[in-house]
C-alpha cells in the first residue's frame, strides 16, 4: 500500500536513517557535477538542479523548481561503495624468518543509498550475480551489500543519454529496494512512497506519512509512465535487443571494428563508469627491508594491455579488438555467463567517453553492417 510523505517531512528519512545507524550516501553537487557522496541532510541533495548530457558532454543546469531528484545519473555509481576502487586484501609481516600473513578484516559500515534509480538497482542486482552467485563469493562485496539500505527513486525525468526503456530496466523501479519514492512537484510538492522490505517499513514508521489516495497513486505513477513513453519515442537513444547476442557473435570479423579503432582512445573510461563492469587486478607493495608487504585490489579494465598479457604479449592489443571485446561481453556473452545483459541503459559510457563513442550507435552500425553482409 503506497503512502504520501510531504516535502517538508522528507528530511525525516535522513534523521531516521542516521538514528538507525546508517551513513547516508547520495547525489550531491561537487565540482559542478552531481556525484555520489556523504549526505548529512536533505539540503545536501542537488535541490533544483539538473544536467544536460550528450555524447562526451556533461553540464550542470538549474531547474526552475525545487525538485530533489530532478536529474538522472552522473559519473559515479554505487559500485564504488560495494566494489571499492582500491582495497587492501592482506598484509604480511616478517620478523627474522617468520612470515605472518594477516587477512584484512572488513568492517562494513551501514550505508544508506539514497536516490537509487531503476537502472542502477538493476546494475546492483547484476553485480550481485557476479560477486555472490557461484562457488566463490566476494567477501568484500558480500559484507558491504548486506549492510546497505536502498531508498530508490522512480525517474520522472531522463537525460538524452538514457536508454533504460529499451533495455527493460526503467524508468519504474522493479524490485530490490527497501523504500521507493516518486517525486511529485505539482500542485503540491510531495512524495509517493512504496515499501519493499520490513526494514523499509521500519524507516517509514519513523517519518510522518499517511496513506495515499488512489488518485494520488495514479497521478504520481503517470509521471513515471510518461517519462518512459517519452524515452521510447522515435529519435531517442535505444538499443534493439532482438537477436543482440547473435548480432555480436556474428560480427566478430566485421569491418566496423576498424572504424572503432580510429575513434576509440582505449582509455578505459567506459569500463570505469559502467555500473556493472567488475574487473580488478592486484598490486603488491613491499617496503625496502622486505619486512612489511601488502596486497591491494584495484579496478582494472579490459582496455589495458596487461589485462590479456600472456607470456610475452597481450592477446588484444588493438583498440578495435578491445572495444569489440567489451561490447560483446556487455551485450552478448554476459547473457551466456550470468543470464542477463550486462547493460542497464544508464548511458554513463556515452556521456563519459572523452570522444563521445555511443554504444547505441555502435550497435546500430553493427546491425546495418550485418544486414549488408559486411
Amino acid at each position, binding site marked *: 500500500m503506497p503512502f504520501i510523505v510531504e516535502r517538508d517531512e522528507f528530511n525525516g528519512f535522513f534523521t531516521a536513517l542516521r538514528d538507525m545507524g546508517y551513513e547516508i550516501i547520495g547525489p550531491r553537487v*561537487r*565540482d*559542478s*557535477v552531481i*556525484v555520489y557522496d556523504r549526505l548529512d541532510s536533505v539540503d545536501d541533495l542537488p535541490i533544483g538542479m539538473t544536467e544536460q548530457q550528450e555524447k*562526451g*558532454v*556533461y*553540464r550542470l543546469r538549474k531547474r526552475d523548481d525545487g525538485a530533489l531528484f530532478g536529474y538522472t545519473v552522473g*559519473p*559515479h555509481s554505487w559500485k*564504488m561503495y560495494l566494489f571499492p*576502487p*582500491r582495497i587492501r586484501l592482506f598484509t604480511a609481516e*616478517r620478523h*627474522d*624468518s617468520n612470515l605472518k600473513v594477516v587477512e584484512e578484516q572488513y568492517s562494513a559500515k551501514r550505508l544508506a543509498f539514497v536516490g537509487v534509480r531503476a537502472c542502477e538497482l538493476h546494475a546492483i542486482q547484476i553485480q550481485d550475480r557476479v560477486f555472490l552467485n557461484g562457488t566463490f563469493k566476494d567477501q568484500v562485496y558480500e559484507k558491504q551489500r548486506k549492510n546497505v539500505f536502498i531508498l530508490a527513486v522512480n525517474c520522472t525525468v531522463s537525460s538524452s543519454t538514457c536508454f533504460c526503456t529499451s533495455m527493460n530496466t526503467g524508468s519504474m523501479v522493479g524490485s530490490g529496494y527497501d523504500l521507493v519514492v516518486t517525486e511529485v512537484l505539482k500542485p503540491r510538492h510531495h512524495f509517493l512512497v512504496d515499501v519493499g522490505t520490513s526494514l523499509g517499513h521500519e524507516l517509514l514508521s519513523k517519518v510522518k506519512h499517511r496513506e495515499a489516495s488512489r488518485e494520488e497513486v495514479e497521478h504520481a505513477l503517470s509521471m513515471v509512465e510518461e517519462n518512459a513513453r517519452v524515452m521510447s519515442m522515435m529519435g531517442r537513444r535505444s538499443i534493439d535487443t532482438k537477436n543482440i547476442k547473435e548480432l555480436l557473435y556474428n560480427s566478430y570479423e566485421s569491418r566496423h571494428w576498424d572504424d572503432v579503432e*580510429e*575513434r*576509440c*582512445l*582505449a*582509455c*578505459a*573510461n567506459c569500463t*570505469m*563508469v559502467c555500473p556493472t563492469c567488475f574487473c580488478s587486478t592486484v*598490486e*603488491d*607493495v*613491499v*617496503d*625496502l*627491508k*622486505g*619486512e612489511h*608487504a601488502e596486497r591491494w585490489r*584495484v*579496478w582494472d*579494465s579490459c*582496455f*589495458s*594491455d*596487461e589485462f590479456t598479457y600472456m607470456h610475452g604479449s597481450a592477446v588484444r*592489443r*588493438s*583498440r578495435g579488438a*578491445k572495444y569489440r571485446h567489451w561490447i560483446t561481453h556487455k551485450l552478448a556473452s554476459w547473457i551466456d555467463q550470468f543470464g542477463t545483459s550486462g547493460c542497464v541503459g544508464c548511458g554513463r559510457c556515452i*556521456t*563519459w567517453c*572523452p*570522444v*563521445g563513442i555511443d554504444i547505441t550507435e555502435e550497435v546500430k552500425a553493427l546491425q546495418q553492417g550485418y544486414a549488408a553482409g559486411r
Partner: protein
Amino acid sequence: MRRDSKSSSRRKRPKLAVWKFASCDGCQLSILDLEDELLELADSVEVAYFLEASRAVIKGPYDISLVEGSITTADDVKRIRRVRSVSRYLISIGACATSGGIQALRNFKDVKEFTSIVYARPEYISTLERSTPISEHVKVDLELHGCPVNKYQLLDVLSSLLNGKRPNINSYSVCMECKRAGNVCVMVAYGMPCMGPVTRAGCNAICPSYKRGCYSCFGPSESANIGALSKRFKDLGVDDESIVRMFRMFNAYAQGFRDVEEKVMEVNSKQ
C-alpha cells in the same frame, strides 16, 4: 636481486649508482625528496655513486644504475656505454631518459639554426642533431616515466628489485587512476582539453585531481590514439598549432607522440 632473507646489518648491500645526462636534475631530486624513506634507503643499498647527493664515489661495478637525462653529445654516447658495462640493472628514469625530454624539440628542427640564434659563438657548441632516449643506445632493463618521476614509483621499483617482486608500473591511461580516485572528468564536465586519455598512468592523475587538464608528463600510454584525441581537441576549439604543442612537451619525441603533426593534418583532411 633477492637478498638473504635474514637481514642483518652486516649483510652486503647492493650498490646503487645515479647517473646524469642531459637533464634538469629533477628526477635525481625526487630521490632526495624521499625524506621519510631516505635513511632506510641508505641502509638498504650502498649509495656508491650519486654526485647530486655526495661527492664521495665508490668504484663500480654497480648493482643498480638509475640513469637520468637524454643523450645529446658524442661524449654522452660513449659515457652511457661505459655506464651500461658497469651496471647489472640499468633503469632509465624520467622523460629525458625515456623519450629524449623537452630538449628533443630540436629533433623536429635544424639544431644548427638553434645554436646560431642562441649562442654568441656557436662554433664552440658540439652537440648531436637529435636528443635521444637511453634505450636508443644501450639495453635498458626498466623505464620509469614522468617529468619528474613519481618518487613513490621509484621507491617501489627499488623495493621490488631488493625483494624480488614485480614493480607496479602500468602503461594504461591516466583516466584509470583518475576514475579510481573518483575525480570528475575535466574534459567531459568542463570542456577542458586533457591529455589523460593518451597518457601513461603513474602520477595518480594529479592535475585532473586539481581540476586541470593533464599535461602528459608521463608520455604516451600503451594504445595512445593521438588522432582521435586531436579531433576532440579541435571540437573543443583548440587550434592546430596548439594541439601540436600539447603533444610537443616533455615527451615530444616519444614513439606515439612524435608524428602528431601528420596526425593533425590527417584529421583535417578527413573533415
